[in-house]
């Protein structure tokens, strides 16, 4: 059974600071997704990581994938309030692309 663990589950940070969210998973996979969810809203796709060593960046967010370590990271650079949301990683085992989600990291960025 695939297990996906995110940490931390809650992160309170000040604007301008850097931080990293970690996503560990228990079974070999080379497809991993990051989503953002605002309170009461749906999930918005942030990154699709498809191979070992994949790195993608969008604005202040950068995601990477290490399939050998079964680890993905979401790095936040110089956080701003607009990044406050819950971030989920999800692992795709292939086949019909069913996803197993982590429990999410609630990020709160304050002045």
């Amino acid at each position, binding site marked *: 059974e695939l297990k996906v663990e995110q940490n931390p589950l809650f992160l309170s940070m000040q604007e301008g600071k850097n931080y990293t969210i970690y996503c560990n998973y228990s079974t070999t996979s080379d497809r991993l*997704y990051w989503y953002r969810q605002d309170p009461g809203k*749906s*999930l918005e796709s942030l990154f*699709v990581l498809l191979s070992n060593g994949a790195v993608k960046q969008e604005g202040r967010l950068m995601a990477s994938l290490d399939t050998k370590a079964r680890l993905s990271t979401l790095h936040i650079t110089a956080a701003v309030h607009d990044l406050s949301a819950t971030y989920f990683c999800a692992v795709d085992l292939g086949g019909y*692309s069913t996803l197993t989600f982590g*429990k*999410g990291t609630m990020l709160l960025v304050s002045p």
Partner: protein
Amino acid sequence: NAGVTQTPKFRVLKTGQSMTLLCAQDMNHEYMYWYRQDPGMGLRLIHYSVGEGTTAKGEVPDGYNVSRLKKQNFLLGLESAAPSQTSVYFCASRPDRPTGGAWETQYFGPGTRLLVL
């Protein structure tokens, strides 16, 4: 394109009542999924479909049934609702193959909030 839409947005049921949640997508996607989201649990897959007329069980299928009679629609049914089914339900869809050379993510609907009393 409306993308993925869900009906209704919110519903209150009494224990034992039945209801159907409708998911529709206008992107001609083959794959469709139903998830539930509970506080602190992330999203868990209930059922999925890989094409018209097909369905398969996910991680938490008990108490739910699904049907995919048309490619664009995926229905989730609760035959006898229980308080444990109080949750937010999300539908998602995606193509069955890369589009324009790019591997696709799942596209999510806005969600249906269900309260079972």
